[in-house]
C-alpha cells in the first residue's frame, strides 16, 4: 500500500517556516563534521551515564538510547493548540478518576460501561471513597501524540501512572545546547529546564492535610536495577529531594518516615515510580519486597500523599481510552481539541469481526501492554505472523484493541547515507497540582529503521530534541 507521509520539514517542496533555519544548518554541515559531532554526543551521554536497560533482553545494561541530532520543531501557534488540548485532556482524566472512585456519575449516566471501569484490573478498590489532595490522581500525565498532517494531531494513548522519558527531554536539550550553541542563538527556542522546579512545586502543592510547614518530598524507586533508574535519580537530584527505595521507608503511627543517618525523618509526599501492586504488601501483594507495609493506611488517613495516586491506572487503560472524548464533554462541557485514533475493541463482536478481516491493515495492541511488546503492525507483518496473531486474538479478544495504521509524520534524521525522513511521535509531560502546567517541549521518539513505524526504544527507536519556538 503506497502511502504518503507528512514531512514536518519539507512540505510541497519547500522547508516549512519553523524549520527554515535548519535548512542552512544541515546543508552547511560537512559529513566529517557530522560524524564527529555524533561521536561527541554519544561520548557525552555515556559520561553523563544516561543509559537504558531493556527488560528481558539481557545484553549490555549500559545501552544508550540512540540520540539523533536533527531537532524536531514546533511553531508557537502549533504548540499553543497542542498545549490547550493536552491540558484539557489532563483535566478530564483527573475528573474521571475522582468520579469513578466516588459516585461514578459517568457510569450511572451510561456514558461508559461499568464493566470496563469496575472490573478493570487497574481499578483499585482500596481507594474507593478517598479523594486525594486537590482532587488530583494523576500528577504527571504523559500524552502520546502522533501527527498525520499540518493540523492533524491524534492522541495515541494516555499515561496517567508514571510516564517515563522526561529526563531525555531535558538531557537532549542540554547536549544540543552544548554541541550547537549557534543554533540556539539563531532560533528562538523556548527553554524546558524549569521542568524539575515545576514538578517539585506540583508535588509540594498536593501535600496531605496533616502536613504542616514545608512538605518533605521524596522520589520512590524500585532500585538501581530498574531500567528507568537513571531518570529517578536524575529527577530527585534536579529537584533536590531524596531518592528512596521501599526499604528506606517505614510506617510508624500515622506517618511515614525515612531512615536517615540522623534517625527517622517524616515524609509528606511520595513521587512513586513503582507500580500500585508494589506499594504496600499489606494491601496489595504479600510477596512484594519493594513496598512499605502499612503505607496505604497512612495514605487513606491523610498522613502522606502518593503521586500518582494509587488507582490512577484505570484512566489510561487502552479500553477506557476510547471514552476520553466523552469524558471531556461530560466533565468539562467542552469539545475535545485533540482527537483519538479510531479504535476497534476486539471484545465487541462487530469490532472483532472487522479486525480479523482487516488485520493486514491494522495495528493491534494488548489492552494492558506497553513498550511496543505484544503488538502487531499489519502492513509490516508476514502472512504467517498475521495468522498466528489472529489465533491469539481469538483466544482472548477482550485483551486486544486495533487501530488503523497511521501515516505517522516524518522529520529529517541523520542516517548513514545522509539525511532522510523517519517517523516520529511525541510525548509531552503535563503537570497537575494546584495548577496545570506544561513546559514547552516533550520527548520526540523516532523510528530509526527506514519505513518502521515503531518508535519504542526497546524496538530500535531513538530520541530527538524537541523545540518549541517563541512567538
Amino acid at each position: 500500500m503506497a502511502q504518503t507521509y507528512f514531512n514536518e520539514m519539507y512540505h510541497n517542496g519547500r522547508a516549512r517556516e519553523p524549520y527554515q533555519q535548519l535548512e542552512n544548518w544541515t546543508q552547511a554541515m560537512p559529513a566529517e563534521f557530522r560524524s564527529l559531532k555524533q561521536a561527541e554526543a554519544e561520548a557525552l551521554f555515556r559520561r553523563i551515564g544516561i543509559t537504558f536497560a531493556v527488560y528481558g533482553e539481557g545484553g549490555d545494561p549500559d545501552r544508550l538510547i540512540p540520540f539523533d541530532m536533527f531537532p524536531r520543531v514546533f511553531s508557537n501557534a502549533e504548540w499553543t493548540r497542542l498545549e490547550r488540548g493536552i491540558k484539557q485532556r489532563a483535566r478530564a482524566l483527573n475528573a474521571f478518576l475522582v468520579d469513578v472512585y466516588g459516585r461514578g456519575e459517568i457510569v450511572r449516566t451510561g456514558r461508559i460501561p461499568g464493566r470496563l471501569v469496575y472490573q478493570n484490573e487497574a481499578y483499585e478498590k482500596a481507594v474507593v471513597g478517598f479523594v486525594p489532595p486537590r482532587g488530583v490522581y494523576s500528577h504527571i500525565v504523559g500524552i502520546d501524540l502522533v501527527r498525520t498532517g499540518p493540523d492533524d494531531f491524534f492522541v495515541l494513548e494516555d499515561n496517567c501512572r508514571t510516564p517515563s522519558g522526561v529526563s531525555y527531554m531535558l538531557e537532549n536539550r542540554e547536549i544540543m545546547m552544548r554541541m550547537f550553541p549557534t543554533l540556539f542563538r539563531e532560533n528562538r527556542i523556548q527553554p524546558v529546564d524549569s521542568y524539575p522546579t515545576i514538578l517539585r512545586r506540583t508535588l509540594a502543592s498536593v501535600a496531605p492535610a496533616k502536613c504542616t510547614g514545608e512538605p518533605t518530598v521524596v522520589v520512590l524507586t524500585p532500585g538501581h536495577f530498574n531500567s528507568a533508574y537513571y531518570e529517578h535519580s536524575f529527577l530527585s537530584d534536579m529537584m533536590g529531594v531524596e531518592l528512596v527505595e521501599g526499604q528506606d521507608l517505614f510506617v510508624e503511627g500515622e506517618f511515614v518516615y525515612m531512615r536517615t543517618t540522623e534517625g527517622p525523618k517524616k515524609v509528606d509526599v511520595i513521587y512513586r515510580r513503582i507500580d500500585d501492586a508494589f506499594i504496600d504488601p499489606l494491601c496489595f501483594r504479600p510477596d512484594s519486597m519493594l513496598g512499605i507495609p502499612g503505607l496505604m493506611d497512612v495514605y487513606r488517613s491523610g498522613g502522606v500523599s502518593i503521586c500518582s495516586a494509587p488507582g490512577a491506572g484505570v484512566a489510561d487503560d487502552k479500553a477506557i481510552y476510547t471514552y476520553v472524548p466523552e469524558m471531556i464533554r461530560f466533565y468539562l462541557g467542552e469539545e475535545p481539541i485533540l482527537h483519538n485514533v479510531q479504535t476497534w475493541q476486539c471484545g465487541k463482536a462487530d469490532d472483532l469481526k472487522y479486525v480479523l478481516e482487516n488485520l493486514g491493515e491494522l495495528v493491534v495492541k494488548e489492552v494492558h501492554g506497553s513498550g511496543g511488546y505484544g503488538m502487531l503492525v499489519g502492513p509490516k507483518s508476514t502472512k504467517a505472523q498475521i495468522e498466528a496473531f489472529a489465533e491469539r486474538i481469538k483466544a482472548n479478544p477482550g485483551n486486544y484493541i486495533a487501530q488503523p495504521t497511521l501515516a505517522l509524520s516524518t522529520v529529517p534524521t541523520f542516517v548513514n547515507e545522509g539525511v532522510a525522513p523517519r517517523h516520529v511521535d511525541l510525548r509531552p509531560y503535563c503537570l497537575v497540582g494546584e495548577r496545570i502546567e506544561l513546559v514547552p517541549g516533550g520527548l520526540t521518539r523516532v523510528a530509526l529503521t527506514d519505513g518502521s513505524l515503531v518508535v519504542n526504544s526497546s524496538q530500535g527507536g531513538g530520541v530527538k530534541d524537541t523545540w518549541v519556538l517563541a512567538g
Partner: protein
Amino acid sequence: MLSRTADNLYWIARYMERAETMARLLEVGARISLLPSTGEGFQSEWDSLLQASGTAEGFAKKYGDPVQRNIESYIFFDRDNPSSIASCIGGARENARIVRGALTTQVWDAINTAFQEMRALERRARSELDLTMLTEWTMRHSALLRGAIDGTQLRKDGWDFLNLGYYVERADNTARLLDVKYYVLLPSVEFVGSGLDNMQWTILLRAMSAHRAFHWAYGGEVTARKIAHFLILNSQSPRALLTSVEGVNAHLDRLARGYGRTTGAQAQARALLAELAELTVEEVLQEGLHEFLTRFIREVAKLGAEVHEAYLSGDQR
C-alpha cells in the same frame, strides 16, 4: 541523609581504596619476582600475595597452581574474584550510580571514567597490557577520584562517610600488607634481619609509595623496627595505622557534632586511637607483630560494624 545513601558513599570509598591496595599488592609481587629465588621448600612469592589479599582459595579453585600470569589476571580482571580491581571499580561505580545525586559531577566523572576505561582494558588482548601500566593506571584513577572528592564535594555528612570508608579500609589494608610481609613472605624465622628480609621490607615500602618518605623520616638502614614504627605508629605516614585511625576519629567527631549525637562508633574509634597513641614499637614486637596485626584487623572490623550500626543500617531511632 538517607542511611542507604551514606552506606553507598562509604562503600564507594572502601572499594576504591581496596582497588588501590590490590594494585599495590600486584606491584609487590612483580618486584619480588625479580629477586633471586629463595630456595627449597618455599612457596612462590606470588602465592603469598594471594594469601595476603585473601583470595587464595578462590584462585586455587579456578586455576590450581599459582602461575604469575593467572594471578595477575585473577587479581586485576577477574569478576569472579570479588576483590579484583575490576570488581572493586565495578562495585564503586555501581554504588556511585545509585547515589549520583549525592556526588558532584567531577566525582561521578572520575568514577565513571575509571569504569569505562576498565571496560576498554578488558576488551584488549592481555598480551598488550603490561603489569606496571595496569597498576599505575589503577593508582592514577584512585588519585583522580580522591582529588575530585577533596576538591569538589560539599563538606557535609556525605563527605564524612566517603572519608570514613577510605580510612577504615586503609587501616585494614595497611595491616594486611604488613602482615603479608612478616607472616607470609618470609620463608622462615632464620631469615629475619637477613639481606633478603631487608630487601623485602624495601619492596613493601615501595609498594606503599613510601620508600623515599621513609628515608627522609628515618635515614640509614632499613630495619623491621623502623618500618613497623613508620607504618604503624608514625602519624606523618599517610598510610600508617595511627593516621588511618586518626582519620576515622576526625570524621566520626564531625558527624557527632553535626548530628548532635554520639554513638558506639565514636566510643570504639576513640578506644582504638587511645591504644595506638600510647603504644611503642617494643610493645608491638613483644606481642608479636603478627599477633598484634591480627588483633588490630579484628578491632577495625568491629569499628566498621559500629559505624554500620550507628549510621548505615537505618535502625537507629
